[in-house]
């Protein structure tokens, strides 16, 4: 990754509340649902398409943890494309807290999710002297326009004023 040129990243003070982004869309395949399920979420409705038919989901479904992992990839790809993101890890830091992670409709193979990201708050907190918190609401809508998943996340951003 060291030869990929990252674009300029933003300071905490430069990130405005209310900013709204759409990261992009992703369609889940049956095999990748099973692969993720076998590794991390071994419930039958994430790993066995036939047995999944007898569950409340009536078929193989994507785990919310898998949806969140795809969200992360969508965000990283988006940030690289639009000059908003990580330079060398110093400027934009880690996610520190999630709130209200909830899934509202099952997501199955062949379904497409579109991911949105809105900066909702910059809480008045300083972490380890130099980091501020950017709080965002993140939503995934399916191909029928239904809200499939939502969570809030606090991500650190370096402050110019230390």
């Amino acid at each position, binding site marked *: 990754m060291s030869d990929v040129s990252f674009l300029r990243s933003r300071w905490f003070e430069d990130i405005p509340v209310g900013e709204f982004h759409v990261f992009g869309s992703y369609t889940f395949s049956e095999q990748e649902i099973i692969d993720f399920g076998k590794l991390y979420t071994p419930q039958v409705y994430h790993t066995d398409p036939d047995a999944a038919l007898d569950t409340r989901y009536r078929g193989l479904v994507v785990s919310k943890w898998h949806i969140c*992992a795809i969200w992360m990839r969508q965000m990283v790809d988006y940030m690289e494309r639009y000059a908003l993101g990580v330079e060398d890890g110093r400027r934009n830091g880690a996610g520190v807290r999630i709130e209200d992670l909830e899934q509202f409709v099952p997501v199955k193979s062949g379904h497409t999710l579109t991911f949105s990201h809105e900066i909702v708050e910059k809480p008045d907190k300083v972490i380890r002297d130099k980091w501020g918190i950017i709080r965002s609401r993140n939503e995934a809508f399916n191909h029928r326009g239904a809200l499939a998943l939502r969570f809030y996340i606090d991500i650190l951003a370096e402050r110019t004023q230390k």
Partner: protein
Amino acid sequence: MATPSTLYWEDIDIGQELETGLLDIDAPGIRGFAEKFDPQPYHLDRDAAEASLFGGLCASGWHVSAMMMKLVSEELIKENIALIGSKKVPWLEWYRPVFEGDTISAHVTIADKSAADGEADCGLIGFDIEVHNQKGKKVMALSAYLMIQKKEVGHV
């Protein structure tokens, strides 16, 4: 709680505790997840990671979450707990990086027990989950509400 028969919602009590197995973290594992889901330098490259706020090659927070789910799921299967779905995660916090060479495990406490709105065949159990490294330091914690099947199907 170790029993060969199925544990339903009625059988689970607030205050009960579970301990999961262990997971060893290595660089190929860290990179494997990061390449797919979180390709940021500090999850892929040792030099970049050492220069970053983390100080060393570490797993993506979402990878730690996925590994937590693996550990907890395996424990629920071992205890024969009738898990039929997941409801919500009110909060999750990442406290410390998980570095290559670390070993993680989770401590689970039954914190809440309630009806599931509109569901006759299951109830909600609130799990407080704490993930520790081999030094006993907390790396992540969360609250997760899971849907557990009821022995006696009730009314909605």
